[in-house]
Every structure is written in C-alpha cells, then in structure tokens.
C-alpha cells in the first residue's frame, strides 16, 4: 500500500487554520482536506504527496474501548509495516502530519478520542502536527510515537524482537515520556536494558510504581556520569539496574 505525506505549504496552511477547520476533524473521512486545499491553492495541487516506499498492507488495532491500551499492539503492527523508512524521514513533520490527515485519519480520531464535546485546538495541534521541539514531538505525536518506540526497542536478533516492549504494556504513554526524555535512550541497547530490567523485576511479583521507575531512570543517568553506558552490553546494564533496585529497596 501507499502512504502519504503532507506538502510543506499544506502543513503550514492546515496547522495555521485549526480554529476554522476544527469541526471537520470529526468527519468520518478526510475528503475535506483536499477540497479545502484546492480552494486555497489555485494551482489545484494536492495537499498530499505519495511516499516513495511501498509499504506492506496493515491495519492498526482499534478494537479496545480504551485506545491507549492498543498502543502496545500497534507499536508492533506499525513499526513492522514501516520498518523501511529511514530515521531521517521519520523525524519529518510532513510524514506524520500527512498520515494523520489521510491514511490513518480514522485511527487518529479513535486514538485521540475525539468527540464533539472534547475537541479543541490544542488537541488537534498536538496530535495531528508537531507542537514541540523536534525530539519531544516525536514521542508526543501518536503515530510518530508508535514508530519511534518500535525503532528504539526492536531487536531483530531476538526470537521475539519486541521483547523489551512488555514492560510498556500498561501505562504506555507515561512510561514512554519519562524514558525517552533522556538522550541515552537514543541507543536502543540502553532503552531495552532499562525496560527488560523493569520487566524482570515485575516478573518476580514486585510492581514497580512510578516513583520506583523514575528512580531507576535517575540511577541510569547518574551511572552515565562516570561510565559510558553505551559500552555495556544490554545484559550488563540490565543486571546493574536490577541490582540497584533491590539494593535501594532493601535499605528502605
């Protein structure tokens, strides 16, 4: 299948005109985008361009009443389908704004829980476009976030390449924000080590609460002050984190 990016002029236009288009975001299709853009752009040029890569056909999970609980599944579906796009392409607002306004418009309404009652400009701006600095936008935009979490956790050497995703099964967004706010998580080995450590601790029957989770992130930050985190293997770093967790909880 083909996916679509939004052209620069169209992004500027639609991003700058959310207020006047707001109710159109509740439509069950995105035909209005092209209609509006044709009027605006007298050249009758399309708002979208076809992305040059052929993508395997996929459909995202929209089955749960709580859309956030589908993120875990959707990382797998989405990243597997779009694995071949490059990191550079995946940092481009035009790609994510384009898919959000076309191929995955329905999914966006579902994932953002858009209703007549709760729709507002901020919600559209943050979810359909990039509203923060580039790096933060990549984990705030619902589609970019699915892809980047997949990109930073996927391990093709493993029988289950998404093993590290297990810990994110619940409370996906909050955990993703705290984890990917640090630069060291740009190295997939480090991100996976942290998540696998957390998952292993939880497997032993302990629930790592928010405070415990943030403490472990803080520990990895501190550790990175003296050693080069990237130098350790995934298992070595994972063991250090687990050891630290048990040490501080023993002393408490």
């Amino acid at each position: 299948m083909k996916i679509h990016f939004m052209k620069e002029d169209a992004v500027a236009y639609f991003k700058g005109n959310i207020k006047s288009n707001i109710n159109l975001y509740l439509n069950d299709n995105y035909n209005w985008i092209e209609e509006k853009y044709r009027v605006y752009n007298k050249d009758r040029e399309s708002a979208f361009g076809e992305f040059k890569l052929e993508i395997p056909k996929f459909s995202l999970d929209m089955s749960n009443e709580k859309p956030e609980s589908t993120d875990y599944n959707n990382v797998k579906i989405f990243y597997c389908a779009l694995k071949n796009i490059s990191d550079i392409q995946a940092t481009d607002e035009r790609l994510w704004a384009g898919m959000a306004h076309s191929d995955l418009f329905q999914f966006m309404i579902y994932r953002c829980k858009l209703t007549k009652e709760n729709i507002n400009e901020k919600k559209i701006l943050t979810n359909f476009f990039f509203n923060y600095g580039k790096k933060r936008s990549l984990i705030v935009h619902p589609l970019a976030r699915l892809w980047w979490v997949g990109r930073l956790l996927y391990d093709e050497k493993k029988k289950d390449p998404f093993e590290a995703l297990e810990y994110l099964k619940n409370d996906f967004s909050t955990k993703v924000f705290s984890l990917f706010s640090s630069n060291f998580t740009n190295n997939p080995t480090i991100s996976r080590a942290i998540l696998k450590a957390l998952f292993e601790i939880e497997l032993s029957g302990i629930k790592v609460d928010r405070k415990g989770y943030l403490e472990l992130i803080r520990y990895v930050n501190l550790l990175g002050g003296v050693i080069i985190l990237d130098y350790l293997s995934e298992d070595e770093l994972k063991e250090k984190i687990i050891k630290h967790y048990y040490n501080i909880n023993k002393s408490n």
Partner: protein
Amino acid sequence: MDIKYKLYPHPVLWDKVDDYNNSYFDCDIELKRDIKKFILKVNFKLNNKELEEMIEKNLIEFVLHIESPMTSYRILKKSLSRELQVSLSDENILGRISLCPFIVAKQELKNFYNSDWNEDYKDTTFEISKGTILAIGTQQTFTVDKENEDLSSIPSIFTIYKKETTEEMPVEVEINSDKVRIGMNISDYDKYALTKYSTEEIVNIVNSFLIYPALIFIFERLKENFNEYSEYRWFKAMNVMLNKYSMKLDEDLVTSKSSLELAQKIMSFPVSKAFLGIGSLEEVEEQK
C-alpha cells in the same frame, strides 16, 4: 553526548583537569564524503606509558562516541589500535553530529594506579568498573545537511500562508519546523499574494515589514532557548548567511549581539533596500 566539564570520582586524563602531570590524550578526526556515507578516519593520540601498556594488555581501550541527536542515532566504536575507521551512512545522520573520544576500562580494574597522577592521589588506588571513563579527548562536531537543500536564500526558509479569518489579527510566526511559517488573515494574505511575483523593489519593501520583524522575533526566541532550534533548516540557512560576515550562529552570538542587528545582517540591510525600492517606485510615478 556532549562532553561537559565535571569532576570524576577517580583520576581522569583530560586537559580540563590536572589529575595527571605530564600525560596527554586526544584524537585527530578526518572527515571524508563518500557515496551516501561519511568516512571518519580517527587517529587517537596517547602519551602515558602505563595506559599504553594497559591497552596492549587488553584492559582498556579507545572509543569514539558518535551521536546525531536529530535522528536519535547514537553508537560507540571501540578500538585497541590508535587508528580507527568509521563509516556513517547518510540514512542515519542529519544535523549536528557530535564525536567524543575516550579511553574506557574494558573490564573491572582492581587497584588501578598510575605513576603520573597528581600528588593528591599519592599512594591511592581505585576500583574501576567496566565502561568507566579514564581519559577524555576534545569533542568535535560536524553538520550534515540534506542533499540539494537550498540554504542560499532567506525567502526559501519561509512559508507564508493564509489564516481563514476576516478578523483583524496580528501576523503569526511559527518556528518549530524546518521552514518558518508566517500566517496572516485573508485580506492581508490576498494582498501579499499579489506582490509575490512582483518587481524586486516591491518584494524588498514587503520583506522589510514581513520577514525582517519575523527574524527579530526568531533571534529573541533563540536567546531564550537556543538548543531547541539548532536542528531546523531555517537555523542552518541563517548560519550560512551569517558566515558571510565571518559570524557563526551560536549561543554566544545571539546573547552578545542585538536581534535587531543580526536580523539586518541576515537580510543584507532590509531597511536600505526598502528605501531604495520606495525611491524607484516614486521615480516610476513621476515619469507617469
């Protein structure tokens, strides 16, 4: 990763501290463009007998930490030899690439000691864990731009669009994207659209009241939060413009110079250009 000045709980060979008396560590990096990739030729320079011996014994090694924050790409290259060649594919890197050389412990080191240490460490040994930084070289950075990226003219980094409102409203400027986006209401936009393909004189006049204040706004934002914007295309284009004046768009520049001055330099003196434009329009009027 950026190397920041900080103190370590053990002696580190680094020119920012005096933990070692007469030793030296750094590296030369030669950058070469190849087809769809960059080749880095790295030459580590170390002058400390014991550390050299430890490298020979496979206890410690040279590493180069490479990071491209814009594409969330971060890797580490290890080497027991002083020479290292690294290939970086265009697919992975964009914007500012930082290269940080270190020497790190390959394994746990018991009783780590060096005879060149500062006297403060006399008769002291250290327990060092794997991955610990033992020496730090000079961080180097280089910038990768997208191919065919036009950074040569200021208009190329602005997108002007119409806000679908007839209400009187101030012009809006958005800078969290590769191009700076300027929005204005229907009546202003329609008038602007008429000037778009007009004479150079008129374009210069329009730029002086549209682009020039937008640039002042941008410099003010850079003063507040410089690092947030450095990866955008407009930022890089502005840097190219400032290079003409032997200036570099960095934090020092935006804090030491006024936004007013920098904006005028970027546009090669918009006010004068606008006056010239008005002058020639008047001449045309008179001839009529």
